[in-house]
């Protein structure tokens, strides 16, 4: 299908456009544009802070909260402002935020520290988001380049496979695969991935999004292969692999850089959605999605269970999105790359 070529850009550039001054390479120019885009830089920094906080989860758990992500304190009593408070009430309602070192964001129904779980959950969410993005980009680039470069039956086969994945509603495919793989894991030859491994949701999300990126790549390669320098390389006797690696891939790099950031946002959202539906990160391991899903039924009595991971999720995704858009505007001011979405 060729429709994406006629689509307008998803987001208008945030930074202004400018003509390339003579004598500056495209990447340096992009960097210069990006630096001038204060909003994108600010959000990029915000995302970095989120990542660092999550990486520091063990430090927070050991040195500040003095508890682990799966450690429960059901029958314990804590002192807040001089008053004693049940971590979990006899009716099963967990305490709200104490804004102190322990239970800063309150407890969950098992008496676990929400702040600790938030950070550990963030590690899982981000890890899956990054792994999935790598999987998507690698698979999509391979598929798009091979299909666009060789055309013919290879293109037919790859394009039909992409059509198939694409016609499958993304969340549905993710849930169906996620639930089943979580049960049995994956065994390919000597390699075995356990059902509760983060690799399962990462693989599922990675595969689900391949068509959304492989298609524009293929379109771009179709155009690139007709260029003179490819013909030149061919007449010089370069092999297909060589041409793809040294002539085509470099020309795709700016497109790929843009996709990496936007795809990361998509993957984090899908991970949360799958976990919310029970097909992502497997309990008792936390992720922002599983935390929200566990909290929804208690939202009236303990809204912090949904609000805390929910807001964190939105902040993380928003910061990647805005930074990614800034990156796109810097690398591709004429907006030829269209972002995908769920």
């Amino acid at each position, binding site marked *: 299908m060729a429709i994406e070529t006629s689509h307008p850009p998803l987001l208008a550039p945030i930074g202004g456009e400018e003509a390339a001054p003579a004598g500056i390479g495209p990447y340096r120019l992009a960097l210069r544009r990006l630096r001038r885009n204060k909003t994108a830089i600010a959000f990029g920094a915000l995302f970095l802070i989120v990542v660092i906080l999550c990486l520091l989860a063990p430090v927070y758990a050991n040195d500040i909260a003095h508890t682990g992500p*799966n*450690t*429960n304190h*059901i*029958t314990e009593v804590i002192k807040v402002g001089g008053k004693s408070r049940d971590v*979990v*009430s*006899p*009716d*099963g*309602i967990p305490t709200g935020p104490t804004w102190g070192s322990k239970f800063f964001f309150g407890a969950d*129904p*098992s008496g676990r520290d929400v702040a600790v779980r938030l950070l550990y959950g963030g590690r899982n969410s981000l890890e899956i988001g990054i792994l999935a993005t790598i999987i998507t980009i690698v698979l999509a680039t391979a598929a798009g380049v091979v299909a666009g470069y060789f055309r013919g039956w290879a293109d037919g086969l790859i394009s039909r496979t992409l059509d198939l994945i694409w016609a499958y509603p993304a969340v549905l495919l993710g849930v169906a695969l996620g*639930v089943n793989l*979580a*049960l049995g894991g994956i065994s390919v030859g000597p390699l075995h991935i356990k059902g*509760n491994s983060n690799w399962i949701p990462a693989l599922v999300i990675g595969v689900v999004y391949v068509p959304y990126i492989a298609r524009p790549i293929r379109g771009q390669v179709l155009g690139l292969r007709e260029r003179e320098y490819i013909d030149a390389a061919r007449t010089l006797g370069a092999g297909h692999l060589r041409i793809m690696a040294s002539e085509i891939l470099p020309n795709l790099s700016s497109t790929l850089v843009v996709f990496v950031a936007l795809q990361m946002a998509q993957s984090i959202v899908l991970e949360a959605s799958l976990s919310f539906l*029970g097909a992502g990160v*497997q*309990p*008792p391991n936390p992720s922002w999605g599983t935390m929200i899903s*566990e909290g929804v*039924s*208690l*939202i*009236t*009595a*303990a809204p912090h269970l949904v609000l805390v991971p929910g807001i964190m999720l939105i902040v993380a995704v928003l910061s990647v999105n805005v930074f990614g858009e800034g990156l796109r505007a810097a690398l591709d001011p004429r907006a030829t790359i269209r972002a995908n979405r769920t």
Partner: protein
Amino acid sequence: MSHTLPRRPLALAAVATLSLGLLSACGSSSHSTSPPSAGSATTGAGSGGKSGGTLTVAMGTAPDSLDPQYGYTTQAVEADAITYTPLLTYTHANGTAGSTIIPGLAQALPTVSSDGLTYTMNLRPNLTFSDGTPVKASDFAYSIERMIKLNWGGDSFITNYVKGASDYAAGKATSISGITTDDSTGKITITLTQPYGAFENVLAFPAAALVPSGTAMKALSAAPPIGDGPYVISHVVPNVSFTLTRNPHWAAQNIPGIPDGHVDSIQVSIQSNNQTEAQQVLSNQTDIFDPGDTLPPALLAQIKSQAANRFKEVSIPQSFYIFFGTTTAPFNNPVARQAVDLAFDRTATQRLSSGFMVPGCYFLPPGIIGHPTSQCPAGDPAQPPSAANVAKAKQMIQQAGLAGTPVTVWSETRSPRQEYMTYYAQLLNQIGFKATLKVIQDAVYFQTIGNEALHPQTGFADWDEDFPNPSDFYLLLDARSIQAQNNENYGDVNDPHIQSELTKLDAVPAAQLSSVASEWQALDEYVTKQAYFLTFGYQQVPIFASTNVDFSSIDFSGNDYMDWSSISLK
């Protein structure tokens, strides 16, 4: 049409239970001449209250199927129990009093041969299904065959005991050789392969109720078959709603002990949002909150303060326990099991259940004959264990050389069961094991831990009675239950003392259970002392109704369901 039940003292309900033999004997002779109102009087279980009106019920979980020979869940039983009458049934009374077996469509309790293998009964004369078709003795054989063909969830209670039933199930026979019926006399004879005292309970399953011969041999979930009971199921929209209305042919049949029911119709709607469901009852838009659903903890405080006179919690015969793999380390060592029992804080699991669990240590729950009343080996289950006990547990594990043994704790996903096991895994770590939690999808949990080859070390399990008989619970500790797949004896418990006791006790007919209550108690105490299981509590369910309902009229049957026919409106 109006069914006016005469007002009579409550005590009669209990009296009726005792004098049933008499009532049924005279009932059969005077049957055809009794006017309907007199018939209602002999049922006795109606304790007064207004008749008529429409009761609305909100359910959070849809019945798996309303077809009596397929539906297995509590929600299905609530509707089927008052629509399909089996040969035997239970007294309609609250709690344990409601677990006594009485004749249903049979004239009297069965005559059991001295070897305990042959059960003989006669069908009451002049019975009709809700469309007026006469009920025949052969309908019983057909209904049992249908239950097997439809793979009803509990059909092993038939295939394991009735002669020829497993051959029928395997397709090796076209009928069940152990069931013979005579339509002209109404005589029904059932032959078992081994004595089985709880067989009368099996005959009282709604799944063993009679449907007409020729009813399609497939689950009729959207249009359930006709039966013979006080109500008829109609207007079924699966997963949305269904209605029960009075069976026009019921009252004339004068079956003692089975009340006609107070309300004229019962409208059930499936909500699937417990919050909405509870709020509807709180604001009197709906009459009954289905006890099979969990009251949202967030609303509990509000309900307790605003609707205290129409809310209560009742215990049901459902035990929550932790099984121990008795064939693998570390729990093949009784010391390890006892140490866990010593340190386990049952008030923690109670809190995780939002208070809907009564802490307890014995496997047989209250309400089941044989529930021990003596003190628990590890002390009062309603109190947290003392620090000394926890320290002692640690020490026991140390001394047994088991410290640091890796343990996998198996758990279901759903809340609060997963939370119970999260707590448990942490406790194991606290007392010296190296535990990891393994959470399994609910849909495959029991088949996963029921795979004998897995030898699961320990994990969550529960048992909700199929029928009010201790032998139903001891299936889970019976070495004969051990099988390669869908094993229910998850810990592979195989103790000669249990086996010899079970051989003796399982043969005692259900009607004489109370005579062996102390033996069951002793067995349950033995099992608890050996710590083959760690029972941590018994389920309570919410009884919550609107102000339109006469709250005191609601019976929660000893057979573990809310008896809609008992409910009257104000």
